[in-house]
């Protein structure tokens, strides 16, 4: 399936958001995820099923003013 992850197209086999993070080797608790403009809470990622061309945003803390 093709997904848009942080603005870039990726071909992935994962079917849930949690599996996707695992497959892409994302780790740590300091991440927030959104799919198609909606927040997906950490505890909901394992049940959140992904669809073709979903837009995934994976954000983490950065310096800010």
């Amino acid at each position: 399936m093709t997904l848009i992850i942080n603005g870039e197209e990726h071909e992935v086999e994962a079917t849930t958001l949690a599996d996707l993070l695992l497959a892409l080797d994302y780790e740590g608790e300091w991440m927030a995820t959104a799919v198609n403009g909606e927040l997906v809470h950490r505890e909901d990622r394992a049940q959140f099923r992904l669809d073709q061309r979903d837009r995934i945003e994976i954000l983490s803390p950065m310096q800010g003013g």
Partner: protein
Amino acid sequence: MLKLYDVEVHSRLLLGTARYPSPAVLAEAVKRSKTEIVTVSLRRETACGKAGGAFFELIRELGVRVLPNTAGCHSVQEAVLTAKMAREVFHTDWIKLEVIGHHDTLQPDVFGLVEAARILNGEGFQVFPYTTDDLVVAERLLEAGCRILMPWCAPIGSAIGPLNPMALRAFRANFPDVPLIVDAGIGRPSHAATVMEYGYNAVLLNTAVAGAGDPAAIAEAFALAIAAGHIAHGGVPLEPREMAVPSTPVIGKAVFT
């Protein structure tokens, strides 16, 4: 003590964490400033969670409270989603709300700001809105549920200092019971002392410290200036006069002619 929503802090300086030469310099500036609140942001993770994790570990080690921002958001939808994602990461209801309306000046989109503030206040956030010195916008933000206001004194990162003292004083006078934080535009400690003398409750800085030749030294200078300005406001400084007034009493002065 300064009360920001339900939190009391001693320091009246809120410090941004961006644009420092290194994490070590940032850490030293935070320590020298004695700030208790630093602003942080969220961005796309590019190192599988490791980049953001390393930064946040540094902040945690400093033992300060974080105020996440929505910097770079140009729409209500972006700002609201970023705020929700920030709450997920930082476990705080605080959000420094920025909805940018103009690319060159980074002037806030005040219409979007009020709309986003209303949404976020309705969802339990405690909003710190980055706004202009417009009184009517400020009233709308309070109506939307904000209990803190953060007017700019000049464009973000400009280091110009208070561009419109009359407007800043009017802002203070109109909202005597609202905590007011000058956010953006300050360049020098004397600028910070000036707005504190107007009666502002705190100052939020980033570039003025991070971009200085010695950020840690400037951070300490700002802390002292902000404290001095706050004390000075309480001490009711003299208003300027157009005529000289002798400071030494003239009564009893010897007459030699």
